[in-house]
């Protein structure tokens, strides 16, 4: 099979993971900017991180023949400090000129706070002013329903944003319809405990349609599985799906969304 890994935090992963992904058929990996597991002390830390995402990590991936793309932002987990967020957001336009940048992400909400919403609005504005794709993180667990609705309502109300150029990630059974009905793309994240299993992700495809959905591992420094995407493809095969359906979900769908950015190319 061939597949795209549309959401993976590879700076937290090992070269063994790159090797396993390429061996499993991965043709490109996309890395959203993320929280480091601790709060960075200044915008200088983000400058270095953006250099890592747009320079060093693509070179590391290239050693395994894997094209690497990135998304830029300050993650909602660090959005309570609006002054810091302003300084980081001011860095982004310069980095948007780099060859592997796909857009603004993963922005969104974490605990659904006022400052998180303020910073989300600022990111959406940068995306609109620079005609960028948007990748949105939705909150975890008990905060997801409320946060997803707040995010969808905010972006939908901005007439500058084409919903077809926005992917709302980490949807589950209680949020998928709200996202899809608003015209956005949706992402299904395959986590052992806190998001979707493969079986549930396939249920969501069956219940809400497969035209504007992708699956990702969102592998990072926490409990996550870098090969979750090909494992989900295997689950689809167990359920009786043929190679064409699997190719649509795991390759053609992400390529269709990501190709709206001229920087995205895949062999």
């Amino acid at each position, binding site marked *: 099979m061939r597949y795209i890994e549309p959401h993976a935090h590879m700076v937290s992963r090992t070269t063994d993971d790159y090797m396993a992904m390429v061996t499993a058929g991965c043709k490109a990996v996309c890395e959203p900017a993320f929280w480091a597991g601790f709060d960075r002390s200044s915008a200088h830390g983000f400058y270095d991180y953006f250099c890592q995402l747009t320079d060093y990590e693509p070179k590391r991936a290239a050693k395994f023949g894997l094209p690497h793309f990135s998304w830029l932002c300050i993650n909602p987990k660090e959005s309570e400090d609006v002054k810091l967020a302003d300084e980081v957001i001011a860095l982004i336009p310069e980095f948007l000129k780099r060859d592997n940048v796909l857009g603004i992400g993963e922005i969104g909400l974490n605990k659904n*706070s006022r*400052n998180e*919403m303020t910073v989300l609005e600022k990111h959406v504005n940068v995306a609109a002013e620079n005609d960028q794709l948007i990748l949105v993180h939705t909150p975890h667990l*008990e*905060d997801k329903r409320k946060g997803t609705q707040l995010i969808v309502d905010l972006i939908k109300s901005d007439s500058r944003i084409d919903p077809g150029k926005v992917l709302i990630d980490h949807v589950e059974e209680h949020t998928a319809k709200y996202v899809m009905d608003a015209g956005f793309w949706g992402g299904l994240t395959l986590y052992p405990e806190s998001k979707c299993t493969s079986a549930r992700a396939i249920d969501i495809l069956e219940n809400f349609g497969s035209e504007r959905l992708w699956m990702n591992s969102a592998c990072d420094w926490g409990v996550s599985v870098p090969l979750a995407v090909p494992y989900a493809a295997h689950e689809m095969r*167990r359920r*009786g*799906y043929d190679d064409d359906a699997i190719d649509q979900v795991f390759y053609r769908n992400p390529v269709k969304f990501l190709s709206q950015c001229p920087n995205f190319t895949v062999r």
Partner: protein
Amino acid sequence: MKPKEKQNTVELYYMEARAKLIDIAAFMDRVERDGFTDDFRYKAFKDALRELDSENRAQAVLLSLSDPTEELIPFATTKAACGAWPDKP
């Protein structure tokens, strides 16, 4: 989206679901044995079990464990989620 060759989903998933069901039973026994039944997460868990009698069970369970309010909170006091809404009556 539907598979070209529909499989018997009970055949595919019964043993996995059975194992998870027994794990839930054992978890509840363990919590009750150790006296942590007043934990708001355990109460929310027991409430969510009632949703297994509904239609769209996965969605109903998720909603049962969700914050039902609509307003932004003043500020975030933590970064982590705990899996149940602490203010549920």
